[in-house]
């Protein structure tokens, strides 16, 4: 017999949401299909590529690996929660200016990883940027412009995301 859906409560990009989920639903699918936030991408679906990265209670996680039930009561931040209204966050603006995005599939996860890094380390070195983004695969850019974007987002005259 099919298990019934379970109600879970989430704070999604600052707003309280209640959703009914299948017991084994992945948080990724709940974000995309139940919450309608399709900015978060599925790349590999096995925790290798980082395209589905979000913040769960402030921690950077791959949402393809988290059962939705485990997120009950948590606050999540997705790529849709990074901009301030119509204004891009500095890290997004830097990706735009530096050419940090090409096909765009890795970009939401890359930006979430960069947000997580800059939250912990306001002025990372290039080695620290490389290390922090090493869990996010990019097929198009060769990474150089992504490193440059993260560095530009945290230059002294720029604002912290």
């Amino acid at each position, binding site marked *: 017999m099919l298990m019934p859906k379970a109600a879970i409560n989430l704070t999604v990009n600052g707003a309280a949401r209640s959703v009914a989920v299948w017991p084994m639903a992945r948080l990724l699918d709940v974000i995309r299909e139940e919450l309608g936030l399709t900015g978060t991408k599925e*790349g*590999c679906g*096995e925790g*290798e*590529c980082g395209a589905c990265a979000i913040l769960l209670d402030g921690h950077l996680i791959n949402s393809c690996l988290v059962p939705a039930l485990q997120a009950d009561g948590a606050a999540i931040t997705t790529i849709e929660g990074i901009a301030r209204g119509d204004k891009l966050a500095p890290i997004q603006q830097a990706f735009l*200016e*530096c*050419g940090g995005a*090409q096909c765009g599939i890795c970009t939401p996860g890359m930006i979430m990883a960069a947000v997580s890094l800059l939250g912990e380390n306001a002025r990372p070195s290039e080695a620290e*940027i*490389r*290390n922090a*983004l*090493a*869990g*996010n*695969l*990019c*097929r*198009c*850019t*060769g*990474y*150089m*412009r*992504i*490193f440059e974007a993260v560095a530009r987002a945290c230059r002294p005259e720029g604002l912290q995301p």
Partner: protein
Amino acid sequence: MLRPGYTPQEFARACAAYIARQGPLRSYSQYQAPPGIFWDDEKYQGDAYGAFAWAAYVAEVSVDTLTCESRITNFVAVQEVGRVVNPVLAAGQIEGGVAQGIGLALYENVVWQNGRMVNGQMTNYIIPTAADIPPIKVIFEEQPYAYGPMGAKGIGELPMDGPAPAIASAIENATGILLNSIPATPEVLMAALENAYA
């Protein structure tokens, strides 16, 4: 036959009327080479394509002879792509192609079995990460191409072709081993080194 704002039904009737009057619709078109480009399809001589791009690649590679792991420590790509229309995106295309070429040279091993790729997952088909890519310096040599848009030529494919030979040559320079296949995984390099120095 048709006035602006026609319905799909009117379009279908017009098509039927055309076919009844003219027979089936046939359309012919043929590629016309730009002036100065000649190709002899009988003898297969000349230039089949007008906009060949050119490039030179330099790879600096360090090889750990204990683990047989190769790492690219520096990379320079000099590209002739006609006129560079958008410098940021153009350099991004070259860097991305070089990164794919590095994957081809060192990591990406497609394993076939019964006509299928058996390692088609990110877990077992390894592509370069942010930790694997060296600084990539891109230098453009601009020779505007008269028949390309704003002088441009194609840009995306070439940077995938040259890096692997450059990396294989650098590995030869470091170890004396000229590999005749890629990727130069530690397993392949270890077997070649053991064979050479046995």
